[in-house]
C-alpha cells in the first residue's frame, strides 16, 4: 500500500473542515469517542450542528477562539492507499502554515466556494503550491448544492483558474465539483451532476500517479552518520565502516562508481546494507547504509553522487525564500543554514525582489521581508553546498535559515 501526503488549503468558511470531516467519516476514520467528544463540545458551545472542525482544532486556544492556529495532521486509509492530511489554516499565518504543509505534500487540495468563485486566497494558495512544487493540484469547487449543481458555474471557475494557472508552474491540475456537506463527488460520483464525467475526490486521491514524481535520475546521497561498530565485541565487524543516510535522488546500486563531495575522491559501492540484509538498489526516500570499496575519508555532511552527474558545488546561491518569523529578514544579516545534512552559516548579500503573492508582481525596491512574505535572495555561505535546483530535487534544493541567537527557524528556502 502506497502513502500519499496531501495538504488542504482554503479560505474561511469554504467548508474545508466539513470536507475533511466527510472524508474521515466516510472512510470510517472517525472513532465513536472522538465523535461523542466533539458532539458534546459542539452542544456546550451552542453550535447548531456537530462542528467537525473540532476534530482538528485540538488546542485549548483554538477551541476558545474558534480558529485553527497550526497545521494539524490527520490520518486515514482506504484499501488502496494510506493518506496523511496536512490541514493548513486559511486565515492567520496562512503562508507559513501552508508552506509547511506543502513542503512534504504529493498533492495540494484547494477549496473554493462555488458562490464566490476564485478569491484572493485561492490564488495565493495556488501560488504557494506551485512555489513549493507540489506535483499535483486539485481545485475542489465546493457548495455546488447552493448553486443548483450548475455546470456553468463550475466551468466559469475552472476557466478562470486555468487562466491564472498559466502564470504558474503546475504539473498536474484537476477540477472536481463537490458538496462536502451532502457528500456529492466526495466518495461516490454525484447523481446531481451527471454532466461531470471525472472522478470523485477520494477516487482521484486513490488513483493519482505519484511514483514518478520523485527524481530517479540524479543520484544523490547526503551522508548522515558514519557507522563504525569497531569497539564492540564482534571481531568480524572490526573493519566495518558504513555511511548511513537517506537517498535524496536517483538510484544507487552495488558496483556503481561514485564520487565523494567535497573531497572529489572516487570509489565504488561495495554494498548497500540494511538491518534486514543487503539490497540490490536504493532510491529515494530509502534509509540505507552504503559501504565503499576503498578506505577513504567520508563524514557527515559529505555527499555521494555519480562522477558524471554531480550537483553544483558553490558558496553563492540564489533562492526564493518564504519568511516564517516575526524577526524580519535583514540584508547583510548572518544566519545558520541547514541544507541536507550540512550545517553552515550564510550571509544575505542581496534581496533581488519581494513578490506580491496576490498579483505576482515583483517589487525590486523592497529592502526587507517580514513574516509571511516571499522574495528572491542571494546568499553567500561559509562553506560550499552541494545543490540542485529545487524544481529538480525537493531535497537537495531546499534549505532552512535559522536565527543564531534564538535558534528559531526563520525562513524556508528553495534553490534556483
Amino acid at each position, binding site marked *: *500500500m*502506497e*502513502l500519499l501526503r496531501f495538504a488542504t488549503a482554503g479560505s474561511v468558511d469554504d467548508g474545508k473542515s466539513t470536507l475533511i470531516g466527510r472524508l474521515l467519516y466516510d472512510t470510517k476514520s472517525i*472513532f465513536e*469517542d*472522538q465523535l461523542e467528544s466533539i458532539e458534546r463540545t459542539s452542544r456546550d458551545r451552542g453550535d447548531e450542528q456537530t462542528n467537525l472542525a473540532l476534530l482538528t*482544532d*485540538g*488546542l*485549548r*486556544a483554538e*477551541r476558545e477562539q474558534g480558529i485553527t*492556529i*497550526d497545521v*494539524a*495532521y*490527520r*490520518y486515514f*486509509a482506504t484499501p488502496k*492507499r*494510506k493518506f*496523511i492530511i496536512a490541514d493548513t489554516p486559511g486565515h492567520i499565518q496562512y503562508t*507559513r*502554515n501552508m*508552506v*509547511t504543509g506543502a*513542503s*512534504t505534500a504529493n498533492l495540494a487540495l484547494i477549496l473554493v466556494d462555488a458562490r464566490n468563485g476564485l478569491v484572493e486566497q485561492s490564488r495565493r494558495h495556488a501560488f504557494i503550491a506551485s512555489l513549493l512544487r507540489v506535483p499535483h493540484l486539485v481545485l475542489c469547487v465546493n457548495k455546488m448544492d447552493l448553486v443548483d449543481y450548475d455546470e456553468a458555474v463550475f466551468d466559469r471557475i475552472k476557466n478562470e483558474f486555468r487562466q491564472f494557472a498559466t502564470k504558474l508552474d503546475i504539473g498536474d491540475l484537476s477540477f472536481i465539483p463537490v458538496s462536502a456537506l451532502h457528500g456529492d463527488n466526495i466518495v461516490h460520483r454525484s447523481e446531481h451532476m451527471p454532466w461531470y464525467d471525472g472522478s470523485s475526490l477520494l477516487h482521484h486521491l486513490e488513483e493519482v500517479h505519484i*511514483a514518478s514524481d520523485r527524481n530517479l535520475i540524479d543520484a544523490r546521497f547526503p551522508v*548522515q*552518520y558514519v*557507522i563504525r*561498530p569497531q569497539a564492540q565485541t*564482534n571481531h568480524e*565487524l572490526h573493519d566495518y565502516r558504513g555511511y*548511513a*543516510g*537517506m537517498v535524496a535522488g536517483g538510484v544507487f546500486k552495488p558496483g556503481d562508481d561514485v564520487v565523494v563531495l567535497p573531497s572529489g575522491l572516487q570509489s565504488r559501492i561495495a554494498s548497500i*546494507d*540494511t*538491518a534486514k540484509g543487503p539490497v*540490490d538498489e536504493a*532510491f529515494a*526516500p530509502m*534509509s540505507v*547504509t552504503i559501504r565503499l570499496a576503498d578506505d577513504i575519508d567520508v563524514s557527515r555532511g559529505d555527499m555521494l553522487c555519480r562522477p558524471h552527474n554531480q550537483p553544483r558545488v558553490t558558496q553563492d546561491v540564489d533562492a526564493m525564500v518564504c519568511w516564517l518569523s516575526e524577526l524580519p529578514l535583514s540584508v547583510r544579516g548572518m544566519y*545558520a543554514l*541547514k*541544507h541536507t*545534512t550540512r550545517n553552515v552559516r550564510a550571509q544575505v548579500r542581496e534581496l533581488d525582489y519581494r513578490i506580491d503573492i496576490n498579483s505576482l508582481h515583483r517589487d525590486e525596491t523592497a529592502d526587507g521581508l517580514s513574516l509571511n512574505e516571499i522574495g528572491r535572495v542571494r546568499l553567500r555561505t561559509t562553506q560550499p553546498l552541494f545543490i540542485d535546483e529545487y524544481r529538480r530535487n*525537493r*531535497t537537495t534544493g*531546499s*534549505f*532552512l535559515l*535559522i536565527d543564531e541567537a534564538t*535558534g*528559531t*527557524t526563520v525562513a*524556508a528556502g528553495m534553490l534556483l
Partner: protein
Amino acid sequence: MSSHTYELTHLEALESESIHIIREVAAEFERPVLLFSGGKDSVIMLHLAAKAFWPARVPFPVMHVDTGHNFPEVLDFRDSTVEKLGVRLVVASVEDSIDKGRVRERPDGIRNPLQTVTLLDAINEHQFDAVFGGARRDEEKARAKERVFSFRDEFGQWDPKNQRPELWSLYNGRHHKGEHIRVFPLSNWTELDVWQYLAQEEIELPSIYFAHERQVFRRDGMWLAVSEHTRPREGEEIVTLTVRYRTVGDIPVTGAVESAASSYDDVIAETAATRMTERGATRADDRLSEAAMEDRKREGYF
C-alpha cells in the same frame, strides 16, 4: 518493495522516515536518550533505533520513568529487551521523587501525572539534550499538533502556540544549555500501522497485549485489573474476563478491552474494525478534561 516501479509500501516509507529522524538525532546531539516503557510504541521505537545503527549498537541509553505501578509482565519484558540489545537502561523512579519530597502522592493514588517531575529531574540530572518519545499524532488531538523535533525550554515546557515551523525532512534541533528537544520518530504512524509493522517484523511484545484471562472490575466505563495497586471499591464487582490491553500505562489508569485476539493478525483485524480510539477506550488519565493531554504536555509530560 517492488523495485521495477520504485515504490515503497506505506510501512517502508514510515520506517525510513523514522530511521532518518533517529540518525539525525544521534548525529546532532550530545546526549540523547530514548524513553522506553515496554509499551508497544516504545518497543517499535527501540527496534527502529537498533535498525538505524546496525550492525553497531544503539549509541544512546534508554530511560524508563517508573511509577512503581507497573504490570509485572511489562517490567520483565523491559529488562530482557535491553539486555538482548546491549543498551544501557536508566530508571527514573517516581517512588524516589516522592521519597525526596519532589512530588506528593495524590489522594487518588494515581501516579501518572507525577511522572512529569521525575522525567524532568532525570533529564536535568543526566543532562540529556534530546529525548525520544513514542507519541503519535493520531493518538490525541494535542499530539496532532506536535512537531517531530519539539523544543522544550529550561522548565521542560511546551508552547504549542509558538512552535518552530518544520519543513521537508529538515529538523531544527537548536537549543541552549538546559533546554532540550523532544523527538517523536513515530509522529506519522497510526495504531494500525504500528500493529501491521509489529506483525511484519515479528517484534516481540509484553504478553498483556494479547488475549488472556484476568480478574477485572468496572470503573468509569473501563475494565481495570485487580492488583496490589488497584482494588475494587464497594459495589465494584470482580469478574474474570478474557481481555487484552491496547495501551500499556500504569495499572490504575489503564483499562483492558474484552478481546479474544491472541495473534498479531487477530489484533490487526480488531484494530481495523474498532470504533474507539485507543486512548479514549483505555486511558483514564486522558479523561480529566477536554485538554488534559495539552495541559500535561505544556508542563513537560511525554
